[in-house]
């Protein structure tokens, strides 16, 4: 998963005619899910092929994967100790149960004896150890192992080449593995749902180190049947899947691109996202497509404009706050963005673990905004306000979004603040944002795993490399560190609520949107297609009815 260069994504949709199709979108309310009764099970027809657009996965090696495209395929072909269900709970996958030591440091996983690789071999504890160790092996060059497995004792040493094995991994017997972590971090389990921790077959890997993943022996609900680069990727159901065989026989991803909307209307694909350009037409009830339109909830992500809080004029929190209060988020979301997004009231997206529905955010209040600006240290002489440049990423000369233009106008009219826009290409943008060179920048964050630590700690702890705004509040740091190791879930969330409130008061960001409240078209014969805000193994819930 990566930052969301919001404009870039929008542009890709335009230029490539949404060649990636609908990204696994979000859930209205993922309620009725697989724990259906036997009766219902029998009613779901088996067989058929689901076809949709996709993009070439950057890799099919789970230990090397770091983006959503790769993860969306990998979760179907491989599996780890735990997985996420459509209700977004962490549930057993290869491990049938686990015990956590009272101090929260030692996790003992008991493997499911029914869990098998695609070639029929039962998954053993050594397979898990090998896979996690492989992720930490510097030769594997995993870009994300620090994020997902860095909590395991010994992973850092292994990565730095100071150890030949990961000391925190212990095979107790054929079916049991013990993992020791460096602090009682309750979000550790959530991290194990990411492909970095997926189990691979050593024999498979070593048989062809350069290309084994094109013929992977995974443990997931689907097998990789065919992969033609830039052309198609075909998955076939794994009938022996230990959590229940998929209903579909096959799922095909068309990788060459194409105009998703057109292909959908031509009955060539089953699912497509609907962009702003087609939205009006499809929302019209007289359009036959309207019946197939579904609306997904917000993605687990946030878009924002970051202030460099060390750079004038943003070194004064009152200026930052004023800019947050000076425009009407709700109105822009509805009038300009056709309600494709949800205005952000806080940092955590609705539905995300630890989300606080009581957070009020920045209500539109131009009077207060003007007053705050006047009270700021620049207030005496606003003409002397340092010039402001907002930098945003934009490959291919992306245009400025209408929402931003409206916000810029609001700042000009309500506060008399002029903001200049500068666009740079994504690669250059990243380099500069990592060096914290920007005075103000547009960026987004997509959740890596469902835990508030993944938003608040990663983005606002003063020592975090993702804290691009140079934000530093000792009280926030202290609360975040406390929350990392707080075993009681309710207390932990309360700590994060406090952090979120403090951050909002300090206003290091202009909050924008929880993105991708997508409209998706789904053919009526496709059932069980959950629109989820996270990547989970979802194909196995889908079934096709006769139409």
């Amino acid at each position, binding site marked *: *998963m*990566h*930052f969301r260069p919001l404009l870039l994504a929008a542009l890709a949709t335009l*230029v*490539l*005619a949404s*060649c990636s199709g609908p990204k696994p979108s979000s859930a209205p309310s993922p309620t009725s899910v697989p724990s259906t009764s036997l009766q219902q099970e029998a009613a779901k027809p088996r067989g058929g092929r689901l076809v949709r657009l996709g993009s*070439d996965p*950057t*890799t*099919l*090696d789970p230990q*090397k994967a*770091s*983006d959503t495209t790769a993860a969306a395929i990998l979760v179907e072909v491989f599996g780890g100790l735990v997985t996420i269900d459509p209700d977004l709970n962490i549930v057993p996958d290869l491990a049938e149960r686990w015990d956590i030591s009272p101090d929260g440091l030692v996790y003992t996983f008991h493997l499911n004896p029914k869990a098998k690789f695609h070639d029929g071999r039962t998954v053993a504890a050594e397979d898990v150890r090998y896979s996690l160790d492989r992720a930490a092996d*510097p*030769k594997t*060059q995993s*870009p*994300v192992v*620090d*994020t997902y497995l860095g909590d395991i004792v010994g992973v850092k040493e292994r*990565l*730095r080449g100071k150890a030949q094995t990961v000391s925190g991994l212990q095979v107790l017997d054929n079916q049991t593995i013990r993992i020791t972590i460096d602090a009682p971090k309750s979000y550790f389990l959530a991290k194990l749902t990411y492909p970095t921790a997926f189990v691979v077959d050593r024999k498979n890997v070593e048989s062809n180190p*350069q*290309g084994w*993943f094109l013929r992977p022996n995974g443990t997931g609900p689907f097998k990789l049947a065919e992969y*033609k*680069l*830039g*052309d198609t990727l075909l998955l076939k159901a794994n009938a022996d899947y230990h959590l229940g065989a998929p209903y579909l026989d096959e799922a095909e991803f*068309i*990788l*060459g*691109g*194409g*105009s998703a909307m*057109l*292909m959908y*209307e*031509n009955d*060539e694909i089953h699912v497509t996202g609907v962009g702003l350009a087609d939205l009006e037409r499809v929302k019209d009830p007289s359009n036959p497509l309207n019946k197939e339109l579904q609306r997904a909830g917000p993605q687990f992500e946030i878009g924002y404009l970051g202030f460099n809080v060390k750079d004038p004029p943003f070194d004064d929190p009152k200026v930052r706050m004023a800019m947050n209060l000076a425009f009407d988020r709700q109105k822009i979301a509805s009038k300009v963005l056709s309600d494709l997004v949800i205005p952000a009231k806080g940092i955590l997206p609705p539905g995300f673990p630890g989300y606080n529905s009581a957070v009020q955010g920045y209500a539109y209040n131009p009077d207060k905004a003007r007053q705050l600006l006047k009270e700021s240290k620049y207030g005496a002489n606003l003409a002397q306000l340092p010039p402001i440049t907002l930098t945003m990423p934009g*490959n291919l000369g992306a245009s400025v979004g209408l929402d931003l233009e409206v916000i810029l106008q609001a700042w000009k009219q309500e506060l008399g603040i002029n903001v200049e826009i500068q666009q740079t*290409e*994504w*690669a*250059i943008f*990243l*380099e500069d944002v*990592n060096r914290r060179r920007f005075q103000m920048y547009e960026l987004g*964050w*997509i959740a*890596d795993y469902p835990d508030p630590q993944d938003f608040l700690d990663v983005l606002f702890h003063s020592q975090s*490399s*993702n804290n691009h705004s140079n934000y530093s509040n000792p009280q926030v740091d202290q609360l975040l560190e406390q929350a990392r190791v707080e075993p009681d879930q309710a207390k932990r969330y309360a700590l994060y609520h406090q952090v979120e409130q403090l951050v909002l008061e300090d206003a290091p960001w202009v909050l924008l949107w929880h993105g991708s409240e997508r409209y998706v078209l789904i053919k009526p014969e496709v059932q069980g297609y959950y629109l989820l805000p996270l990547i989970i193994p979802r194909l196995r819930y889908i079934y096709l009815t006769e139409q």
Partner: protein
Amino acid sequence: MWAYILRRLIWLPFLLLFVSSITFALGRYGPGDPVQVLLGQHYSPEVEQRIRAQLGLDRNVAVQYGIYMRDALRGDFGESYKYRGRSVSELLVKRIPVSAQLGLAALVISVGLGIPVGLFAALKQGTVWDTVAVAGALAGQSLPVFLTAPVLLLIFALKLKLLPTHGWGGFFDSRIIMPALVLGIPGIAIIARLTRASVLDVVGQDYIRTARAKGLPERLVRVRHILRNALVPVVTTLGFALAGLASGSFIVEGFFGIPGVGLLTVESLFARDYPVIMAVTLIGTTLFVLANLLVDLAYPFLDPRVRLGGGIVAR
């Protein structure tokens, strides 16, 4: 003639060395960094350091270049940074023929329609037909592919349901028709205009008058004397078009879902995927040189006055 070919080809390695060193240096010293693109939101200075060392990017640039060229000479273009675990050759080997076939189909359309239209306009010079042909050519050349592509899709795929919207099945598959048309339309215009201008130039020459005076049938005059001589500048343009064949078109490939090299090239530029960029540049340079050579070899057939390696004989 063989000596001429050899003499031309001797320069190829030097050219490649020059082009590769410039491309290499531009990548390494230019802004943007493949490791940071790869890491995205998982960036931290420590991880960056580690991945950089693993990819060998922490070494002296000259050393990196030396290693790259050593491997490239052995046919090993390295591993893609973006498509991790995939060799560059693997990424390109299937895509180049796709783009080449598409480009060839487009070229056939451009030439097949462009030359007759140009000839026709020239022979009808000053008439309303000429105006129509020239205006049509100008319009065709001005239409951007991001307009022609969706319009063709709308008409032939969505309304008439005659052609599929996307995909690739090779040179003889119906799916090549629309993308080849979209790619070929601007070429029709360019070639038609060139042919027209060139024919008008030739028509006024003395030898045409001589040909007609000696009683040669008009059809033979047109084909053997006018067209053949008029094609020299057209062939030169074709040379450039031929060289560009394998580099693909990013927009057309995107629109029609064609797994060609154009999309890959643009993606690799944005991702600073140096190994892919280098390979595409080197292959492109080689093709360009070869296409130019081919064009030069074609001249003597069109114009007997041209002697390879000797320059043009005075008239």
